[in-house]
């Protein structure tokens, strides 16, 4: 168990690839079709390496690579570092690379996608930080290692935070109803539209790492009970996919309203009550 977190951080692209592949199968089955094989993401990966990469300009391509490495580093910092807040701030930085890359090209879809990506950030990050604060309040530590050795069940103290987090996962993973920055039918992928070949593959893989990132946070909610964590992750996974399959895309006004006026107060209320209970009474 000693090197578990480090191993996960290093192997995260592969683990994320499997999660993504599994998700595609589940999604297809929910839509009553057969769906691609489980290894499909890796087939895509190999193909994209073999494709010629058309660069718009080198800075743009570099931003794509930077996004990938920053996301990877974010996950490593999150899992192995002393403070999960560092991981969350690095997460913002990683997305900033994507946004800058999106703004650096002339394509209107890319620019529009980057604008929407900023809105995503505004919705997602406050809740992520509240999650971290909530976990700190329960376990008394900012480090993943300590949270995972906490003997109680943090989810029992943080039910509303957990609900808020689960409902914002679609926005992190760009899934319906909050896939507005990618919005395949409106802006065809948003900031990733101009990437091709190897550089698109970097962005594509970075998305897999985000899956690991998200489910790692879900995992934290059960403390030391890792089997409960696995069950919870699977449940959340199924819930998110079913939600993805049963909603249409909201527009960004609705997303901001939902995130700021429903989820954020919900999570804040939970933390407020918890803090009162911990420190005042």
């Amino acid at each position, binding site marked *: 168990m000693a090197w578990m977190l480090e191993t996960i951080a290093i192997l995260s692209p592969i683990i994320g690839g499997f999660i993504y592949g599994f998700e595609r199968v589940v999604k297809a*089955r*929910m839509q009553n079709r057969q769906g691609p094989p489980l290894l499909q993401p890796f087939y895509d990966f190999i193909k994209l390496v073999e494709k010629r990469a058309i660069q718009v300009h080198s800075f743009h391509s570099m931003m794509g690579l930077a996004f990938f490495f920053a996301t990877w580093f974010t996950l490593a910092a999150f899992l192995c570092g002393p403070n999960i807040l560092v991981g969350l701030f690095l997460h913002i930085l990683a997305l900033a690379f994507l946004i800058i890359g999106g703004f650096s090209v002339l394509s209107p879809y890319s620019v529009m996608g980057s604008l929407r990506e900023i809105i995503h950030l505004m919705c997602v990050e406050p809740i992520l930080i509240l999650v971290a604060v909530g976990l700190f309040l329960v376990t008394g530590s900012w480090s993943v290692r300590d949270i995972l050795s906490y003997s109680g069940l943090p989810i029992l103290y943080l039910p509303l935070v957990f609900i808020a987090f689960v409902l914002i996962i679609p926005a992190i993973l760009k899934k319906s109803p909050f896939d507005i920055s990618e919005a395949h039918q409106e802006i065809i992928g948003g900031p990733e539209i101009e990437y091709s070949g190897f550089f698109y593959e970097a962005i594509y893989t970075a998305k897999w790492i985000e899956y690991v990132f998200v489910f790692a946070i879900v995992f934290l909610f059960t403390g030391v009970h890792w089997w409960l964590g696995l069950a919870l992750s699977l449940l959340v996974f199924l819930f998110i*996919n*079913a939600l993805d399959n*049963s*909603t249409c895309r909201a527009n960004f006004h609705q997303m901001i309203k939902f995130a700021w006026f429903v989820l954020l107060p919900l999570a804040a209320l939970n933390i407020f009550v918890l803090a009162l209970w911990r420190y005042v009474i």
Partner: protein
Amino acid sequence: MLKMFIESLKNLFSEPATLPGIGTEAPKGYRGLIVFNKEKCIFCTKCELVCPVDAIKFIYPEDGSRNLEFNYNPFLCIYCGECVRACPKDGALIQTNIVPEPGTQEDNPNEKWFEIERRAQESKKKWQIALAKKRQEALKKAKKQPPSDKKGSKK
């Protein structure tokens, strides 16, 4: 939303609607490839006339006989079946339910067909001239010795 949510979970554990393999065979009445049967054809060229896209072309022989060469371009045909309905002889043109096979660059549906169209046009002109000649000759023959010919045939 809830309805679809439940349906999605239900679908997850039920058989997918996807057909196995590449799909079904076309049903019995499908309007597929047109098949030409040379033995039965009487070369009235009605199908060529009636085809809205000129996907059937007859190349005429040079000697003026009625032994035409049938040419058909499956990449141009719209499978409306009008030629089959126009065909006076049963079984000379049949519409099967075979789905036409995709072609590659070797099939070259365009250039080959242009060549055939050109040849068909040229051969028709030649054939008409040859036919006219033939008729004239026949007429001449008939004029030269009409009574004896008739008698001969009667005998």
